[in-house]
């Protein structure tokens, strides 16, 4: 027979006191455990940390303010997230082939990554040929977009374009839709990463008009889409770049909200109605390996955004209050060493995003720390999502961690930390001013350095990098995919022939109208970009015109 158990003291408080005594006695000197945002983490959480007193005000129910538990009543039990894998490599036919493959494997939406030459505002014959198509698809015209999206039903499939301001990819998509007889009112998707501020702060990728011009073009873009492409999300506010550049999860979310407020304030200043533009605001985040921190941050984010939309903008439509976000597993956490370990990392990151209530997910391929993803890597990334969605029972219960003493306490702490960082930006005069002054960039650089120090000192384990190393030869690493140089040369030759054959008169007229719009605040620059795309102008021509008229935005050197 088992010995009888000690009788439990009747008072819960006495139990907790006893546990604390025993914990202290056994642990000796306790570790100072902090998450990536610097919040101290206790060894255990109890009803003394989260009493549930504020359940109705702070937690509530999914689909209702403050949306902590999710923005829709059914969440993933009803409709799971959109499986949106970012892809792009080579020529338009290469892209179309890869897109068709991943749709057949389970991807449910289009996402297009253009070549870095497109990001930078150039046509294919304005850059080093070696670089063409190595990181994205070379799309310079409406014809190229038509080929990229061959076989895609534009009226029913959501299309996300990683679209550099001035949003020529959307303009090419709209021109393609018109040719195929699909009304613009049926087109849905997102101008992914349309937020110029995050590009100034962090990855410096997208085509850069000097800040005042970039600000105006985004406003024109939002206004145009609200009027003519009502199912399109023109505003994608990006925390991902800032976190990849080194911001902590709390900082990334704070700066993202500060950016959203800047953009929303700018829309209001143009006389737009919050209930018209806010429902088309979307967010884009990184998901790090800090599992509970990420979940708590997304729960806190929903609450913060709902309150801002209602209190700051007086929005009355619940669609304006919902914090909709796409997330991508963090590439910075992946390692070149023992690359297949990254499959485990991506799985944990994706679970954090799913349990955090995301609407759309990209899972990184395990070989992204080595090169652009191989087809093998991309297939495992898609399969990871399929497994999590359909095998792991993650979607059975809405917000399954809600009510956990730890997760609720951490949600409150992350909310406080996010609001604290937001206040610092407000004190600097808002996000536009803080970025123009380099304040945000500097803070992110310091956080990046702190994290690097933690890795180099061994305080933060990275398996295969500063711990558990194994000797590897290059057979451990898959060889990288490269665009076929012959196909790329054919692509360039066809582009030159097409450009020589188009109506030069129509092109010149459209570029003149674009240049005039750039200097006339009453005109809409994006409307003229769309007209230029339809008239046969190329991406490089459109960008060159705006660079000339509105000035180029240089990167500040901040070390």
């Amino acid at each position, binding site marked *: 027979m088992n010995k009888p158990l000690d009788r439990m003291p009747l008072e819960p408080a006495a139990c907790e006191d006893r546990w604390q005594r025993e914990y202290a006695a056994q642990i000796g000197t306790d570790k100072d455990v902090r998450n990536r945002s610097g919040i101290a983490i206790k060894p255990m959480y109890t009803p003394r940390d989260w009493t549930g007193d504020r359940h109705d005000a702070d937690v509530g129910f999914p689909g209702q303010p403050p949306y902590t538990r999710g923005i829709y009543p059914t969440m993933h039990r009803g409709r799971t997230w959109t499986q949106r894998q970012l892809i792009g490599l080579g020529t338009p036919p290469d892209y179309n082939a890869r897109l068709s493959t991943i749709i057949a494997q389970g991807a449910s939406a289009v996402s297009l990554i253009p070549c*870095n*030459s497109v*990001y*930078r505002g150039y046509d294919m014959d304005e*850059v*080093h040929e*070696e*670089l063409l198509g*190595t*990181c994205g698809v070379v799309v310079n015209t409406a014809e190229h977009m038509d080929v990229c999206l061959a076989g895609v039903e534009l009226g029913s499939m959501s299309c996300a374009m990683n679209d550099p301001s001035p949003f020529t990819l959307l303009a090419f998509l709209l021109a393609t839709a018109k040719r195929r007889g699909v009304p613009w009112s049926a087109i849905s998707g997102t101008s992914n990463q349309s937020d110029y501020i995050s*590009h100034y702060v962090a*990855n*410096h*990728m997208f085509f850069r008009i000097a800040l005042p011009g970039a600000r105006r073009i985004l406003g024109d873009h939002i206004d145009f889409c609200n009027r003519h492409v009502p199912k399109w999300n023109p505003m994608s506010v990006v925390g991902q770049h800032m976190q*990849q*550049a*080194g911001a902590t999860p709390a900082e990334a979310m704070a700066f993202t909200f500060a950016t959203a407020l800047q953009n929303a304030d700018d829309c209001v200043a143009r006389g737009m109605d919050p209930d018209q533009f806010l429902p088309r605001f979307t967010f884009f985040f990184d998901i790090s390996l800090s599992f509970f921190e990420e979940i708590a941050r997304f729960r806190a984010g929903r609450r913060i955004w709902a309150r801002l939309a209602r209190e700051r903008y007086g929005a009355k439509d619940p669609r304006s209050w919902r914090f909709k976000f796409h997330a991508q597993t963090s590439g*910075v956490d992946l*390692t*070149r*060493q023992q690359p297949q370990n990254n499959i485990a990392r991506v799985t944990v990151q994706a679970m954090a995003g799913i349990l955090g209530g995301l609407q759309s997910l990209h899972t990184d391929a395990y070989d992204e*720390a*080595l*090169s*652009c993803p191989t087809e093998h890597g991309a297939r495992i990334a898609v399969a990871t999502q399929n497994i999590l969605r359909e095998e792991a029972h993650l979607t059975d219960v809405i917000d399954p961690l809600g009510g956990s003493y730890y997760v609720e306490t951490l949600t409150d702490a992350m909310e406080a930390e996010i609001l604290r960082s937001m206040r610092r930006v407000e004190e600097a005069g808002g996000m536009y001013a803080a970025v123009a002054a380099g304040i945000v960039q500097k803070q992110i*650089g310091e956080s*990046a*350095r702190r994290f*690097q120090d933690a890795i*180099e000192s061994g305080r933060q384990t*990275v398996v*295969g*990098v500063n711990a558990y190393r194994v000797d590897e030869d*290059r057979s451990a*690493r898959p*060889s*990288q995919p490269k665009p076929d140089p012959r196909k790329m040369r054919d692509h360039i030759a066809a582009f030159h022939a097409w450009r020589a054959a188009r109506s030069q008169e129509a092109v010149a007229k459209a570029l003149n109208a674009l240049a005039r719009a750039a200097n006339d605040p009453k005109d809409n620059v994006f409307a003229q970009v769309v007209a230029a795309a339809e008239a046969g102008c190329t991406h490089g021509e459109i960008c060159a015109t705006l660079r000339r008229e509105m000035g180029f935005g*240089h*990167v*500040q*050197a*901040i*070390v």
Partner: protein
Amino acid sequence: MDIRPKVLVTKIGLDGHDRGSRIVAAYLRDAGMEVIYTPPWQEIPAVVKLATEEDVDVIGISSLATDHLIVPKLVVALRAAGLTDVAVIVGGIVPDEDEDMLLAAGVAKVFHPGGALEDIAQYIRDITPVLRAQRAAG
């Protein structure tokens, strides 16, 4: 003998991700080196000009999105400008077959993700006296 290496940390090509170049530049500076840092998107002739004017020992190129593919063009341009004793090192995401190509093209060393910052600093400390001796020998 106290040699203070002079290093240009920069990015050429199309990519703008500068977390790596900023961290490396700050580390080398804090390690006592003289660091010239530029934002991304430098043209090759601009890098050659800066390296000449500043008389640097080492040029560090950060490449995270295939920009290393044009580093051989930079090496050719440096040599053509008479900068034969300036070492070009590359850090970032460089696949194995490209590393072979870079080393064959005259790149001195490639550093990969997960490496320690101190390894880069030590390499520069080791190579600088050699480069200066070569230059002095003319």
